[in-house]
């Protein structure tokens, strides 16, 4: 298999973009990524998206986007893995280029979520869970995560306030990311007083949805010409699955698919958690940040919140996470999120992350994208060369 480089990145702001449709958002990100790569075409296009059928009444999205960006005729396909769709599309593109089926691929994650009423969007998001045995009982996706968080606090003795550093760090970093959904720093008091959604999860534990798109251009590493900025290679790419329903897990407090995919990606990269200098994790809810840190080897079991309380998760800390705002404050346009994470790691490895740049020219960054409450988990490790 060939080594792959990420040659170009592009993204739109995450917001309520009432003036922009699904195709317009995807198109902006694709054209920005192609321009960044210095290319005007690709051999294939992979779209990561979760909800276009339910929220936009549009499927066959890949052909739509491909035509819109002026690449009519190019092979294209949509990949769906709930909130993990973005990284799943990346992985599909990687496999195609690595196998030699294509010499270049565009990966774009896109989601258009604000044309619909809140309850309808909430019901659509619940399709990431088990429809017959979770959603049919009236569970929202937030509620499923709340069940996990409540039990976690019970078993390991954490208080709600112990999770505050995850949200505070994310909001502080997003302030310096012009593409982020939220630009309002929060205090521990704000965190404690936020409106309850499904206890113990309040509004500041949960990531905001939004409209947005992000894109990448993939090429074989040997095709990259030096142009003065570090080339970013894909050093590890792996995915694993678990049951859709939380109640079917052997241990609902352990992300086994995160552990499995991270272990595989570490093996491919010849690295371990101690070598990772940036970790863009899937902090859709603060509890998920804790569980990811544990499953990927950054914290002992039940000790995820400790890293935040010890001040280790900021851009200058031992395990910088959510360096551009994370899902919590950059925003979570569900099917696009996994691609935003990769765009942000590339920014960090190129030294283009501005005020939240991780110091010391980092060379290894990891991104982890989760579909459902832990059912599909994809881990990617990028390396600056």
């Amino acid at each position, binding site marked *: 298999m060939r080594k792959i480089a990420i040659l170009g990145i592009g993204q739109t702001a995450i917001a309520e973009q009432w003036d922009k449709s699904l195709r317009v958002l995807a198109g902006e990100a694709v054209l920005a990524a192609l321009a960044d790569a210095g290319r005007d075409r690709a051999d294939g296009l992979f779209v990561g998206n979760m909800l276009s059928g339910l929220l936009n009444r549009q499927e066959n999205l890949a052909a739509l986007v491909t035509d819109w960006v002026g690449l009519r005729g190019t092979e294209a396909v949509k990949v769906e893995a709930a909130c993990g769709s973005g990284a799943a599309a990346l992985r599909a593109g990687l496999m195609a280029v690595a196998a030699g089926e294509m010499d270049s691929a565009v990966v774009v994650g896109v989601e258009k979520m604000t044309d619909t009423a809140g309850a309808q969007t909430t019901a659509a998001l619940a399709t990431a869970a088990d429809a017959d045995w979770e959603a049919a009982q009236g569970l929202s996706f937030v509620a499923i995560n709340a069940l996990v968080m409540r039990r976690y606090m019970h078993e390991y003795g954490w208080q709600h306030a112990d999770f505050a550093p995850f949200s505070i760090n994310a909001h502080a970093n997003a302030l310096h990311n012009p593409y982020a959904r939220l630009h309002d720093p929060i205090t521990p008091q704000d965190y404690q007083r936020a409106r309850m959604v*499904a206890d113990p999860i309040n509004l500041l534990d949960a990531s905001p949805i939004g409209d947005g798109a992000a894109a990448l251009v993939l090429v074989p590493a040997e095709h990259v010409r030096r142009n003065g900025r570090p080339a970013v290679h894909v050093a590890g790419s792996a995915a694993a699955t678990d049951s859709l329903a939380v109640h*079917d897990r052997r241990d609902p407090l352990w992300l086994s698919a995160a552990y499995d995919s991270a272990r595989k990606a570490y093996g491919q990269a010849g690295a371990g958690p101690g070598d990772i200098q940036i970790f863009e994790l899937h902090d859709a809810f603060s509890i998920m940040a804790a569980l990811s840190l544990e499953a990927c080897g950054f914290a002992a079991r039940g000790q995820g919140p400790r890293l935040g309380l010890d001040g280790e998760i900021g851009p200058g800390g031992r395990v910088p996470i959510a360096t551009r705002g994370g899902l919590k404050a950059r925003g979570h346009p569900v099917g696009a999120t996994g691609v935003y994470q990769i765009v942000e790691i590339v920014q960090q490895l190129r030294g283009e992350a501005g005020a939240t740049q991780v110091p010391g020219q980092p060379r290894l960054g990891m991104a982890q994208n989760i579909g459902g409450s832990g059912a599909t988990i994809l881990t990617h490790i990028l390396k600056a060369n």
Partner: protein
Amino acid sequence: MEISRHWRLQQQRYGLVGEVCPHCDIKIFPPRDVCPNCAGEAKTLFQFSGRGEVYSYTTIYEPPEGFEGNAPYTVAIVKLEEGPMVTAQLTDVDNNRVSIGMPVEMVTRKLREDGKRGMLIYGYKFRPVWSHQSANQLAA
């Protein structure tokens, strides 16, 4: 919501009928035909008692479409006494008096109303099992 979709799950929704694995004897709910423990074929029906305890719970203030009329309502993961866990709403309970480990039992209740077609969907919920002592305290 589709009528046939609820009809084919009625044994589970009304009766908590699952399966038992003939190879490793593990009890399975909801039925899945392939044992999650040993991956053998498991199609032997098994009637669950409906008794269990609360593994975790939360109260929903922002419900999904179709459940707006119920909010706020409390849902739980219930660990059945035969082993498997099930996700369900709690009923006949004060939202502020639920706790992890609380004993509960299954009852059949209305899950939701399909507003457009007027269809009522019934299924299992769980309610607290009060000991005689706590029942007396309530009466007093």
